[in-house]
């Protein structure tokens, strides 16, 4: 196309778009009022000021500090309970559950993978990062008394039963799967699964889909007996916190000074996070080492199997993305498999995009899900492999200690320890025999 022709074409296109833009507004001309009528002022009430987001960050920081102090220094279960009630009221019922650290994980991933689609504000990033760093310092005190999802379950614990260790261990793998899936879907820009299936946020908003409210009620009812089922067997953020807690600089201990091996704390933990002293190894060290190495040698195979399974699961998982689901639906409608046109496919057809264009976009999403699925699958393979190796490693616990990754730092075990009572009597000024 020559240069003048191009300019004319562009000018024509501009006129056409102006005409198209004007036509909807000017089907009926703007009235010329003669009686001095003035347009009413539109009422657009403002949302919560953005600056208040910093207040949330400040409250979160304060609550993390208070929880860590209560768990590590004051060793006060009532204090942690009251702080939990405050967090439930503020982050839950007042702030209506959004934005929470558990969900902010997805904001961070979406912003990291798709900066052109979503740029995370500082408060969202900090809400994600602060509990992680706090846990790296002091253990999962966030879970103890700051997380509103934890707090609402914590008040429901009435008669906790002991979940058999094998079942506890097996169910404890679900959060890894949930984490991998939620991270994949968030990074693909296909939505925030953790927020969509958050069972308790409906209570905070006092509104929500019936099945979500029912699931939340069911989990709370289950939580009467199985303490904090969401935290232990679902929460994907808990996986990250568990890693941080394993490496934490300080961590709450059952006894304030020394363990006298009295076993009184043994059954005090409703989450089954208290571990007995490690038994003497049943097999000699070379045999143990051989077994551990043998298990570690399976990790590459597990990685490969996980990657292959994730790659294969990528295509079905990609249907979670609306772009893929719509293209699929259009194809099915064209093939006569669907008799009623969906709202979305009707809209897409009316929007006059070429099917090839839609298909290219959808294929790009599927490719991302395949690659991401392979990465998520190999991550899960690695997790299983490391768990297996962990079974062969000798324990190093000399006392009754909390399992760091699982301990929610709730402080329920403190008063079961006789040494704690000695400490408290001393604090009251009594002379107590050591």
């Amino acid at each position, binding site marked *: 196309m020559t240069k003048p022709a191009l300019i004319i074409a562009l000018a024509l296109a501009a006129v056409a778009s102006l005409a198209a833009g004007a036509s909807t507004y000017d089907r009926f001309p703007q009235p010329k009022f003669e009686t001095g009528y003035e347009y009413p002022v539109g009422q657009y009430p403002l949302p919560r000021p953005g600056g208040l987001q910093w207040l949330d960050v400040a409250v979160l920081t304060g609550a993390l500090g208070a929880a860590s102090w209560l768990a590590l220094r004051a060793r006060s279960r009532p204090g942690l309970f009251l702080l939990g009630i405050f967090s439930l009221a503020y982050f839950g019922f007042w702030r209506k559950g*959004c934005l929470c650290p558990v969900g902010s994980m997805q904001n961070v991933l979406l912003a990291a993978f798709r900066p052109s689609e979503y740029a995370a504000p*500082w408060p969202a990033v900090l809400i994600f990062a602060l509990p992680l760093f706090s846990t790296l310092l002091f253990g999962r005190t966030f879970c103890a008394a700051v997380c509103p999802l934890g707090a609402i379950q914590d008040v429901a614990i009435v008669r906790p039963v002991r979940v058999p260790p094998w079942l506890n261990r097996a169910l404890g793998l679900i959060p890894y799967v949930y984490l991998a899936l939620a991270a994949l879907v968030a990074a693909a820009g296909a*939505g925030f699964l953790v927020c969509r299936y958050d069972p308790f946020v409906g209570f905070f908003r006092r509104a929500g889909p019936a099945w979500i409210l029912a699931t939340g009620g069911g989990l709370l009812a289950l939580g009467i007996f199985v303490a904090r089922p969401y935290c232990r067997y679902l929460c994907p953020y808990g996986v990250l916190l568990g890693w941080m807690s394993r*490496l934490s600089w300080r961590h709450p201990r059952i006894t304030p000074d020394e363990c006298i091996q009295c076993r009184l704390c043994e059954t005090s933990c409703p989450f089954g996070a208290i571990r007995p002293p490690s038994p003497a190894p049943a097999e000699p060290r070379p045999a143990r080492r051989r077994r551990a190495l043998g298990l570690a040698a399976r990790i590459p195979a597990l990685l490969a199997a996980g990657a292959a399974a994730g790659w294969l699961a990528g295509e079905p998982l990609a249907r979670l993305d609306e772009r893929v689901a719509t293209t699929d639906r259009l194809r099915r409608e064209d093939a006569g498999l669907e008799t009623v046109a969906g709202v979305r496919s009707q809209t897409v057809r009316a929007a006059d995009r070429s099917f090839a264009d839609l298909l290219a976009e959808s294929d790009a999403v599927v490719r991302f899900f395949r690659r991401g699925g392979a990465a998520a699958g190999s991550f899960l393979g690695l997790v299983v492999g490391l768990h297996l190796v962990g079974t062969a490693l000798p324990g190093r616990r000399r006392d009754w200690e909390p399992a760091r990754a699982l301990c929610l730092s709730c402080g329920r075990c403190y008063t079961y320890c006789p040494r704690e009572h000695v400490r408290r009597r001393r604090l009251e000024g009594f002379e107590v025999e050591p």
Partner: protein
Amino acid sequence: MSEGATSGPAAPETPIGRRRFLRRGAAGLAALAAGGLCAAARRGGQREPALVWQIDPDKCVQCGQCATHCVLNPSAVKCVHAFPVCGYCKRCFGYFQPDAERLTSAAENQLCPTGALRRRHVEGFYYEYTIDEDLCVGCGKCVKGCTMYGNGSLYLQIMGHRCVNCNECAIARSCPADAIQRVRVARPYLLKGRPEAPST
């Protein structure tokens, strides 16, 4: 898990030292990983402290799902009116049923299921239409009529004081036209208006 890399101390006199060194190293790596993820999330350079959900009125196709898919009941989406765009029609396509026999405010003539759209005579042939926000359920029936046959002055918008700003907006996900997006909280409304006139 990360402790799993070592199995037993090599030199009996420094068992704690090595384990502690490895643990500190792993903790440092974990902190670096978390910090790196946060830095990656800040690549977009968002300056606003918060974002809010808004409907792009030009993309909206009035499918009606805003009324049913919002986590709030009634929905945070309401009909709003760009008065300078309105033709003040006597026969309003947003107010009257298409087959309304008489142009009166009798319920059978009205399109709005809750009677939230109010009609008032201004002068001559001109009538003013206002929305009772408390009655509006955000179904978009009036918006559809006005957009298809009128000037398109009625449109749907997410009301900032009602929206609970879910991290994943349920209507944004169900919107067939992808019309719902996050906007900066400093300019929290996407409003319709005549190009030359300031938005009302």
